[in-house]
């Protein structure tokens, strides 16, 4: 069980983390979502014990994390954002070295290495130098090295940066396996689709503060619309969307090129009325699709800024 209480960290006048709190239990994946510089890595660093917070505390199974040599650290596995491997050494050498840092040796270390390599599918490359690995393989090995001491909590700081879709899916599969084994995963990312796919709960962080902490469904409920209807017009010239705003369930309507995007409270009740209104007013259409609003929309709604531009 991971419990973070009101963590704060400043560098000079810059407040990097400002009162972040969160909880995560077994078999739970928590997404820490935010733009670059939001304070995600600083938060993860404090949870991993890389440096102490200015205030607040990190509790692992009820025990506070304090000091460099705190045995509680053994319950945490960190997968840093930058690949933490020696290119000059083989995968096996890297694993042997990083396992020994947790006092693992002999048969226990050998077994742990075997299981970790098996999980990430790199057993046959164990004796190759890491410098010969592709970016995706390095990322998978980066994950494996954090598992050697069998940590209860896994901190994953943007573990898929720069990898191809195939390797990304492989890493997702690995993480889902770990979740099934009862691990607690704290996953930082600024990719919304990753958070949507993997996380049971998503914490949105911006300027060092938590601005939302809920399930994906709960976050959607925070939005003024629950669905968006996208309609591609046959002749968009002269179309005025303001006429749609008076219809029942319609919250917003905007036109971009030939596509009208209409925000609705209730799709079932709202969609027929919209289509009827278009027909009655002589606006033919080619395609109609409905979308759920994504986390980008959530972030936009909460901060007034796009996640990728923040």
């Amino acid at each position: 069980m991971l419990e973070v209480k009101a963590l704060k960290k400043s560098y000079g006048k810059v407040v990097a983390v400002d009162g972040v709190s969160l909880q995560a239990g077994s078999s739970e994946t928590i997404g820490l979502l935010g733009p670059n510089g939001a304070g995600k890595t600083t938060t993860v660093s404090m949870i991993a014990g890389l440096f102490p917070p200015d205030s607040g505390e990190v509790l692992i199974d009820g025990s506070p994390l304090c000091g460099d040599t705190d045995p509680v650290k053994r319950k945490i596995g960190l997968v840093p954002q930058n690949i933490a491997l020696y290119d000059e050494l083989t995968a096996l050498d890297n694993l042997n070295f990083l396992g020994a840092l947790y006092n693992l040796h002999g048969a226990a270390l050998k077994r742990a290495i075997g299981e970790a390599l098996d999980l990430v599918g790199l057993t046959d490359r164990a004796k190759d130098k890491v410098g010969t690995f592709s970016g995706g393989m390095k990322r998978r090995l980066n994950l494996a090295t954090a598992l050697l001491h069998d940590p209860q909590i896994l901190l994953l700081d943007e573990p898929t940066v720069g990898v191809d879709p195939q390797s990304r899916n492989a890493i997702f599969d690995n993480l889902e396996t770990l979740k099934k084994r009862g691990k607690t995963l704290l996953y930082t990312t600024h990719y919304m689709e990753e958070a949507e796919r993997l996380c049971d709960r998503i914490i949105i962080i911006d300027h060092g503060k938590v601005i939302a902490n809920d399930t994906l469904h709960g976050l959607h409920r925070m939005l003024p619309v629950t669905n968006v209807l996208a309609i591609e017009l046959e002749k968009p010239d002269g179309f005025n969307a303001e006429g749609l705003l008076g219809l029942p369930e319609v919250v917003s309507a905007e036109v971009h090129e030939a596509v009208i995007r209409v925000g609705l409270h209730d799709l079932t009740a709202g969609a027929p009325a919209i289509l009827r209104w278009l027909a009655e007013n002589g606006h033919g259409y080619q395609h109609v699709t409905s979308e759920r609003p994504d986390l980008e929309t959530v972030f936009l709604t909460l901060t007034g800024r796009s996640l990728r531009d923040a």
Partner: protein
Amino acid sequence: MIPFLALVRKDLRLFFNDRRAVVVGLVVPIALASFFGYIFGGQRGKTETSRMQVLAIDQDRSAISRGIIAQLGDDKNLDVKPSTMDDARELVRKGKATVAIVVPKDFGIEAGHALFAGGKKPEISLLYDPSHSIELGMVQGILSGAVMQAVSKEMFSGPSGRQATKEARAQIEKDSQMRPAEKKTLSDLLSSVEKWNEQQAQQPAAGQNGAAGGLTIPFQTHEEAITSGPDIEYNGYAHAFAGMGIQFILFMGLDVGVRMLLLRQSGLWQRLRAAPLSRSMLLGSRAASAALIAGFILCVLFIFARLVFGVHIRGSFLGFLGVCAAFSLMTAAFGLMIAALGKTVEATRGYAVMATLLMVMLGGAWVPTMFFPQWMQKITVVVPTRWAMDGLDGMTWRGLGLSAALVPMAMLLLFTLIFGAVAVMSFQWETPA
């Protein structure tokens, strides 16, 4: 202990996996030390002493001028070649010759007159390369002896000497200022010289001793190099290998510091910090591996020097190991201090290279400190490399005992403590994400 050993083992593996580092750390210092050892004397007795290139321009072509040039040619330190004025100027200007000696026309006659009658002293011109002013003094000294011997030899046994004494006697007779008693004494002296000269001319084979061989410097020198013992000659390679070893080990220490700076910016540092390891273990393991690599480099260099150039540890072997160990620890602390004080890799590398080169230079690793001015010899005691060089020289070619290694070891350990303390106090453990 397992994590500590793993950290040290990993550093050693990384060092030995990096062929460039091994080449820079071993082959380059061996090559440079071999070169410097050779040009700074090598193994005395086994190497040829380089002779100074001297040009002789004989405009007099007299027996005396030929005698002078022959005398110079016999000197073991000089390689004398005949030349012309124009060629000599050109060769000295280009640095092909160190000094050119110009014996002017009528030098022999004028020198003879100057010897007996106090006439005008003739002038020998020396054209020299200003970058070799020390050698100029040496040539002047050898030339003085050669001139004295050649002129006196001719005056006491040669035809121009007979002519010169006759002319000198005639000049004395004409001198109205000289008192009669003085005139008689000088005339008798020259008459005796004239008789001696005539006798020698009739018995040329007998004229090799006394004044007939010319006046010579009335003493000889006996040089004895005070090394580690009698019959043990100085080995220039000992100092060269110590100097180059120290230089390249310091560069290795610098590299340790820069690598640590880079490590702090990497995910590996985060992973190390996330493990339950103390700060002292993280820094201590780095220091231990750096010290082991430094010790290894020193050992390999001296083993090579022993096998190839006959460099022996003439003094205390324990003292030698102690100095090596203390210097290795000092290097490790130096590397950590660089990592602690450095901000950016580029700037740190620049400052650290400058500091390293200064330490190497002032410590006497390139040129022994005995060639430094007195004031500089005094102030270089604040440079750790000076103590390392003194310690290694003392334990190798000077053949000193363990007691002579204690002060250098203590000073090196003091520098280790200072550098280590600065490193621990200044180390930036937190890097903003």
